[in-house]
């Protein structure tokens, strides 16, 4: 009971931009370093060690970025939707900033997933693009990210921009399970999941290891970049807040 109260009070403490700012500053270099190390290890295994795939040849090596990027594109959107709930429900400032801070990274991963997918599709399927459910819903995700970013920059009033953005993040989240389950629900050209939580992966050991390392590297990268961006957002938005004004007066 006592620990849960302590945990909750700590959570509220770090939900304030002024206290989260230095915490984010201390944390991001560690996440960035982990991202670099894990990405180098993942790339070494994926590009140098893992054997050629029997059916897809070496074109399959694109999946070491394609799959982690696609996972990240969906997951970041869900995290944005989570912060959207906090923003709409509790009107917390930091949650709105986190939501905004994640969007460009989510858009970047969605673009990478689409681009690498096209480059994988051409040699494997014989086409850069098909309008199947998986590809189309991922493209919609890309437009949702772009729409979110455009909306945020189009509305001058920060609070209104936050609430409008939160609404887009929340409504758009419906698309994420559609992307994920599209290969099951519809007869898509896109193959089904190679890695799932409920059964053994249908991949060679080194292939799986390379992909998991790249996936964790993408996580670490996303966290590092989101923390750096939220710090920029905090100083941009809080420039008139007492904790920043007092520090300026000391100069």
């Amino acid at each position, binding site marked *: 009971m006592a620990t849960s109260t302590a945990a909750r009070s700590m959570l509220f403490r770090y939900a304030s931009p002024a206290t989260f700012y230095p915490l984010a500053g201390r944390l991001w270099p560690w996440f960035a370093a982990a991202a670099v190390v894990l990405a180098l290890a993942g790339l070494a295994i994926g590009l*140098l060690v893992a054997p050629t795939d029997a059916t897809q*040849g070496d074109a399959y090596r694109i999946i070491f970025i394609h799959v982690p990027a696609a996972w990240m594109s969906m997951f970041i959107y869900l995290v944005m939707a989570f912060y959207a709930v906090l923003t709409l429900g509790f009107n917390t400032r930091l949650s709105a900033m986190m939501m905004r801070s994640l969007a460009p990274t989510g858009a970047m991963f969605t673009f990478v997933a689409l681009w690498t997918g096209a480059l994988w599709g051409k040699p494997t399927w014989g086409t850069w693009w098909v309008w199947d459910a998986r590809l189309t819903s991922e493209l919609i995700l890309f437009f949702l990210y772009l729409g979110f970013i455009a909306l945020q920059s189009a509305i001058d009033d920060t609070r209104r921009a936050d609430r409008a953005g939160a609404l887009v993040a929340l409504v758009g989240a419906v698309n994420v399970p559609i992307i994920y389950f599209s290969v099951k629900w519809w007869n898509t050209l896109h193959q089904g999941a190679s890695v799932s939580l409920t059964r053994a992966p249908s991949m060679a050991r080194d292939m799986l290891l390379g992909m998991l390392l790249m996936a964790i590297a993408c996580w670490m990268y996303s966290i590092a970049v989101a923390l750096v961006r939220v*710090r920029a957002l905090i*100083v941009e938005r809080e420039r008139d807040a007492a*904790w*920043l004004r007092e*520090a300026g007066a000391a100069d």
Partner: protein
Amino acid sequence: MPVFWTSVGDFLAMGGYGVYVWGAYGVTTLAVLAEVMALRGRARRSGPLTRRADEAHRS
């Protein structure tokens, strides 16, 4: 873990899929670099404020 390739040429050729594999990895690298550079530019623009905010917590 042994390296799969027998020569640098083989590695670059990627079994004939070099254009696709390196096209994917190259553009991904550019996308990541673009995001990192954009963030650095943003941090530089808010530089004085950032310094002030960092100092607020050091004191």
